[in-house]
């Protein structure tokens, strides 16, 4: 018997207004994602893949339908509950890294841990582990502007991992990287899914990047077509 899906989406729709026009970003989307899957969301620009990713990650709200993550209906959480939930359950990797430029790599990774009850020593231990996992144990004292794009994205992955979330969402994580760095980043995400049983959901335009996932979903005009 199959285990309960970690993400269960039913009849999800997202409609927003752009001036006078109503735009349907997602139209009755239903999917299940199992623990440890590496799901790749693909599709043309405006197909709704980033919107779907944002709703799953709890940084955007659906217009209708339900999104259950680990049995919790994200739509029912208040802003404050959602913030706590994101901190504990979701790791984010963005296309443009989004590291805080005035902080070192280690401090950037430590940021989500400031919201936890962990002491300084334990936080440092976790940060060191996360940086080691992405191969940057020796770069903790470097600021983002002292690192390459690939290294910055690996720091971002370490920041996503440091709270040990069940879900890692990555929005075009290789979009700003050269081929070599992209391969490194994708390999790390793949290893997290395969070896650490993290559920990874990644948006990409790149078919080659999609090859690292365990399943690909294609969206067009807000609907899953394959």
């Amino acid at each position: 018997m199959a285990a309960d899906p970690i993400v269960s989406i039913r009849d999800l729709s997202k409609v927003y207004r752009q001036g006078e026009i109503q735009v349907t970003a997602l139209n009755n989307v239903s999917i299940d994602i199992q623990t440890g899957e590496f799901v790749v969301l693909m599709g043309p620009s405006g197909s709704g893949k980033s919107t779907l990713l944002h709703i799953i990650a709890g940084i955007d709200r659906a217009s209708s339908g339900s999104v259950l993550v680990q049995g919790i209906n994200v739509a029912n959480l208040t802003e404050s509950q959602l913030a706590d939930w994101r901190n504990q359950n979701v790791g984010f990797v963005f296309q443009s890294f989004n590291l805080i430029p005035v902080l070192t790599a280690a401090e950037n990774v430590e940021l989500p841990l400031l919201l936890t009850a962990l002491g300084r020593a334990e936080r440092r231990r976790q940060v060191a582990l996360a940086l080691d996992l992405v191969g940057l144990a020796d770069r903790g004292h470097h600021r983002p502007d002292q690192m390459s794009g690939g290294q910055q994205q690996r720091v971002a992955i370490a920041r996503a991992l440091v709270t040990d979330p069940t879900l890692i969402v990555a929005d075009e994580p290789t979009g700003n990287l050269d081929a070599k760095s992209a391969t490194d980043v994708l390999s790390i995400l793949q290893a997290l899914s395969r070896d650490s049983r993290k559920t990874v959901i990644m948006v990409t335009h790149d078919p080659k990047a999609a090859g690292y996932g365990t399943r690909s979903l294609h969206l067009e005009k807000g609907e899953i077509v394959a």
Partner: protein
Amino acid sequence: MNLPTFILKNALRNRRRALLTVLSVGISCALLVTLLTLQRELTVPPESAGASLRIIARNKVSLAQPLPAKQLAVIERIPGIVAVSPFTFFGGNFRDETVTSFAQFAVDPRRFQGLLVEARVIEGSYEDFAKDRLACLVGADTFERYGLKIGDRMKFTGTFYPVDLDLKIAAVFNGTVDDRGLFFHHKLLDELSGDPGTVGTWYIRAASPEVANDVIARVNAAFENTAAEVRAETERAFQLGFVSMLGNVKMLVLLISGAVVFTLSLVTISTMSMAIRERFRELAVLKALGFQRRELFAFILAESFGLAALGALLGVGGAWALWTHLDLQKLTNGFLIYFEVTPRIMAWGAAVAAIMGVVAALPPSWQTARMSVTEGLKTLD
């Protein structure tokens, strides 16, 4: 790293802007403190220990109208009075000066001695002053300012009185709230003016602060319905009467202070808004990581308040240091005497800066609270 470190690093990320913000808050605060100190200097005359005992009686019609010298006999018999002296403003120009740069008063030296309780003679002797009708008693500030010596002559050209004075310095005093004045014999003024039998005002000392009001009432009552009714009032009230002649200085200074505060708030709000606007994306990322509105508000508030507090420290502390150590009395030719930056004024300066720090944090905090994570990420993508 901890949250205060994070806030500090954010506040100092653009060091030039942080420095300029601190400087603008600091300079505005210093200006505000200076204006409030000026207002205090102009509207609150300096008080001395004996001020609550001293009473000045002038002609009820106007200060410019003299009083009959014969009133002395009536006044000195009023219960509660321990000393009384004629006290007539001469208003002469010293040497070739074109303005009256310090006041000269004609007094009765024997009677006057009992009125200046806090004055100390530091050079010469009071007796020398009292026994020589051409002698004068000079304040230490004036004595030093003109580099004078005991025995020097001081010549004055009369402006109110059509006579000139040629006085000899017999003694120097200090220890009063205003050590600039000069006193000379009323007899001399009488002789030079053709003995008109008048005085400018009466300078009276009450036996104790408790009886001062009774003394005032009795002096006023003693000359009611006479040709020269008097208006007696405390020295402080008399000085405040002069201040009112300056017009509504208080309102003027308050208006300028208001403009300073308004400008200060515009500067800090604008700076904080700029600082936060360029960080919208980062704030959106922090929200995505789980930071809540109240935490982001605390970051912005701490940064804004911190910069304002630093500016206040610089401005208020700088103004205090400057006005405390600068000899303003000398620099302003005696126009400003104390210019004291009181703890109350410093607290006002600091409080205004602190309030500005909080107010400046509100608009960017409101913007940040309303911003969704996806909007924040898109805005700067």
